[in-house]
């Protein structure tokens, strides 16, 4: 049997489409973990990145924190938190958020710093307030790069959220871990395929977001 047969068999089995272990449920769980983690990471990373990028201060500190965060192994962190805190959503969310913040933070900072200084100077000279400069001038011009930071964070979360299954939570990781345990390779491959599909869907969503949110005047220049 090759991989394609596994995939076919997995998706053909009607049992995989129903109940608490069905694809729709697991998919929704995975999506929920991803969106929650991405939301928290963005809520932390975007404001800090925008502000430090706007003022130009704190860039070095940011880079250091980001490097440190990247060095943390997600799986190790989760197991550690699980031992310390016991069963709960926190041991799952913390590693995902820690994983997602560096790309968001660093890319947002870099995006803001790489905005052409001339229009910013012009905006200030015309009497725009600093918040207006940030949101009406810098942000629209930095948006393509900022979105790319969010996109790579989202992709990383999608693939890493599979580890939630190790601490008995749901998501698409369930198929992979249970499948390995049960030597049910159909399940393993099916789960992996679903994760890959979700990652591709994430790419598509960000592409669409870029089309809708980024001004044509800026899109041409990146």
């Amino acid at each position, binding site marked *: 049997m090759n991989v394609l047969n596994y995939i076919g068999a997995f998706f053909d089995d009607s049992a995989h489409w129903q109940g608490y272990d069905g694809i729709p449920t697991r998919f929704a769980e995975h999506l929920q973990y991803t969106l929650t983690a991405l939301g928290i990471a963005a809520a932390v990373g975007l404001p800090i990145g925008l502000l430090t990028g706007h003022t130009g201060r704190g860039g070095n500190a940011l880079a250091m924190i980001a490097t440190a965060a990247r060095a943390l192994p997600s799986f190790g962190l989760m197991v550690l938190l699980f031992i310390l805190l016991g069963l709960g959503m926190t041991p799952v969310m913390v590693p995902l958020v820690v994983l997602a913040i560096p790309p968001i933070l660093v890319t947002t900072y870099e995006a803001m710093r790489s905005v052409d200084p*001339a229009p910013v*100077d012009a905006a*200030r000279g015309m009497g725009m307030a600093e918040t207006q400069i940030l949101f009406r001038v810098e942000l629209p011009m930095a948006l393509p790069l900022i979105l790319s930071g969010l996109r790579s964070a989202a992709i990383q979360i999608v693939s890493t959220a599979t580890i939630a299954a190790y601490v008995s939570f749901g998501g698409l990781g369930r198929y992979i871990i249970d499948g390995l345990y049960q030597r049910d390779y159909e399940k393993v491959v099916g789960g992996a395929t679903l994760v890959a599909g979700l990652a591709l869907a994430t790419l598509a969503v960000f592409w669409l977001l870029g089309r809708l949110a980024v*001004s044509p*005047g800026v899109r041409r*220049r990146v």
Partner: protein
Amino acid sequence: MIRIDSVTKRYPDGTVAVDRLSLEIPDRSITVLVGPSGCGKTTTLRMINRMVEPSEGTILLDGADIQQQPVNTLRRSMGYVIQNAGLFQHRTILDNIATVPRLLGWGKEKSRARARELMERVGLDGSLAKRYPYQLSGGQQQRVGVARALAADPPVLLMDEPFSAVDPVVRKGLQDELLRIQDELGKTIVFVTHDIDEAVKLGTMVAVMRTGGHLAQFAPPAELLSHPADAFVEDFLGADRGIRRLSFFPSAGLRLQTAPIVAVDATAEQIAAHDTADAPYLLVTDPNGRPLGWSEPRDLTAGQIETGRLLPYGRPFMAGTDSLRAALDCAVLSPTGWAVAVDAEGRATGVVSQQAIGEAIRGAHAERRTDDTAQKVAP
């Protein structure tokens, strides 16, 4: 009026960019700050809209200290144009121009209507309104920059080397356009450049600055060219200061000769009559009086003047409106050494020799000297 009163700017690293500068910038005219790179022009300009805060001294706008005004209110009352225009890439041309009106709380429609009006004023085609900055040439972008600065009709316009990034032909167009707009609007313009020709062309008053942020001379361009304050200014004005100064002498006083002009359909008697003129050449015109070229009198035969064999007459000057510089330039360029004066319709109104222009220049200089002495005697 903007009054810069003994202003010094010391940057945090210790650089003194402007040193005890005092300057009175007259209303409704163009004041140019000119000088070598790093002499403090940009710093001076940016202190007027408080993009840079002076270390010492005060700047007064209509008698009030600009420090007392909310900074953004002050900036919105002053148009600001920078070197590469600094347009907002994410906004259309129309929305770029409408920026300050929108900041001032005008409605969207009113702001856009105003922006359209300004596009026309600065010579931009209305079809560009929906475009984005990257779709415009450098010269067009600069026009948008000027329109954006003028949008809320501010009394003051600050311009930092606005035309230095475009090629000479486009630059000349933009300069002419600025002078035309200024004729219509009468703004108080402070214009920074390092190009002395631009300064002389645009400035009602020119402030020459020297490295270290000192004012070397503050004078109208004609005076700058005739009486440079010191060796630095003289050097900065360049070697052809004398020729350039002729731009300020009108050609109206030139004695034009009409005797050496014959029409292409002239009769033998008419040609013979002109032969007595003291000019070695005759200017042949078409039946409407437009110049065709020069010829020696003996080469002309009535009824069969070959226009193809005439000597070119170069570029004519407009009698009265053009300066002595233009007249001299025509004479120098003409193979016969004579300049051709034309009227607005391009008809030859007279010719004048290099020698006669030289006399006029000497006369004009003498007249200026008497004026200067008179001024000194009775201040």
